[in-house]
């Protein structure tokens, strides 16, 4: 007996929802950043699952590119966090309001 596709999609949906909850309730910029990584990963799981169940390599190639973009995003995002901390001495979302109207 094998694991059907629906199970993988359900796990992926659960991980994505947990990532969304994390983004909404946490205020530490770095933790919010990690929640975004979690959401990216849950989408990757969906793509790999579809790729394996449909026998199509396009999904796995897309996951490869998502990983490259995530690495670039991590580098730039963490550089922004460092620049922010240097200017405001905080990584708390509620204290960062220079773009708030």
């Amino acid at each position, binding site marked *: *007996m*094998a*694991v059907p*596709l*629906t*199970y*993988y*999609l359900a*796990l992926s*949906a*659960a*991980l*994505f*929802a*947990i990532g*969304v*909850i*994390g983004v909404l*309730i946490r*205020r*530490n910029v*770095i*933790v919010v*950043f*990690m*929640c975004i990584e*979690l959401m990216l*990963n849950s989408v*990757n799981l969906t793509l*790999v*699952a579809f*790729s*394996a169940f449909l*026998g*199509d*390599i396009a999904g*796995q*190639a897309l*996951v*490869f*590119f998502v*990983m*490259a973009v*995530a*690495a*670039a*995003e*991590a*580098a*730039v995002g*963490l*550089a*922004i*966090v*460092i*620049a922010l*901390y*240097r200017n405001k001495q905080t*990584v*708390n979302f509620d204290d960062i309001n220079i773009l708030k109207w």
Partner: protein
Amino acid sequence: MTAEPLLFLFLAAFAVTTAVLMIIQRNPVMSAISLIGNFFCLAALYLMLRAQLLAVLQIAVYAGAIMVLVVFVIMLLNLGDEIKLPVRFGFRRTVGVVLGFGLLLELTYLLLFTPETAEHEMLHADAPLIGTVEAMGTALYSQYLFPLQLTGLLLLAAVVGAVILAKRRLP
């Protein structure tokens, strides 16, 4: 083959547990460690889906490079525990959890009422063939050559951008 559903259930439970631990822990280092556990779980799931190359990349790129960067920044900024929310922010937490569960309900509704997904009970017969380094390399260097080169350009731009952003401003 009978061990596969058990393995899946174990990995899924571990993945969800580590994800929940990541968002409820106040200490960012503990959050990062939970997320690394989650990434290892996903790598194991990729192996169950016969995606060998992506499983290795998941550990090398995500659990390796990206999380080392995150932990390094946490250490550099010397972050402590997140302070407790004042009472007036309590409703925001409620709204966040409600919205997240709403999204989960929507997704499961879509899953349950899309008949096409239920038709796929078994892995495709070609699944062990497409996840290998050979098949992925052939696809990336022929069919996806242009996106691959654009990815190189993107990484270069990201490196330059990160250096400029994090550089100490000259007086």
